[in-house]
């Protein structure tokens, strides 16, 4: 079984569909959306060029390691800091996984 990674995207509310569509185009199977509250230090808007907005959506997507960079780039292009979604995305390793049917090859 190929190594998997969990991609976590933090986006403004209502943009999780954009993230999922971008990820699916690059071969991701599916994802899970959670709601969260984000808190940054004062001045976050200067650095990230985004308004301070408390409510956030977290999108969790498990992908094969070989697809990780493509999916991250697609998320950044479609819902990154320079878009309305003002999203950031990163990945963490998955040590073991079961129940995933990630068969799309792209």
């Amino acid at each position, binding site marked *: 079984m190929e190594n998997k*990674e969990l991609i976590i995207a*933090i986006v403004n509310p209502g943009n999780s569909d954009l993230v999922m569509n971008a990820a699916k185009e690059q071969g991701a199977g599916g994802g899970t959306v*959670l*709601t*969260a*509250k*984000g*808190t*940054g*230090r*004062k*001045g*976050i808007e*200067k*650095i*990230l*060029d985004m308004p301070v907005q408390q409510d*956030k959506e*977290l999108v969790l997507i498990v992908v094969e390691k070989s697809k*990780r*960079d*493509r999916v*991250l*780039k697609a*998320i*950044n292009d479609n819902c*990154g*800091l320079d878009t309305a979604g003002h999203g*950031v*995305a*990163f*990945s*963490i*390793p998955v040590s073991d996984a079961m129940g995933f049917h990630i068969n799309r090859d792209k």
Partner: protein
Amino acid sequence: MAEQKANKNTVLYDDDSQRLSLFIVIVNNGLASIYKNCFINECNCHYVLTLQGRGTATKEMYRMLGLTQVKKDIIIAITPKSNLNELFYRTREQFIVSKRTKGVAFSIDLTSIINLKAYKYFMYGIEEDKYGK
């Protein structure tokens, strides 16, 4: 070679001091603000997320872990790896304060992050943005 080319789109980590980690704490409902303020104001964290969850462990397990409620607050701090010792220390201090503030904490290293601006913010915060263009 192909992998190297793909990685040009993500931040490469050269050593541990440049890595980011997630520091995750699960505590009783309503306590997130205590930890959030501590992390941001005292532990040099630049961004913290809080979620609500519900614990599903057995009563025995809850007793063993010192937890008392089923509703939980989940605090996720995105922080430089070098900060983890301080975060664990501070969190342990909070756990010791009383049984009510007890919880579980763990960390996971990030493997990659997209967008250099975001990386620099999580890593250095606003004050040290001058280090990067």
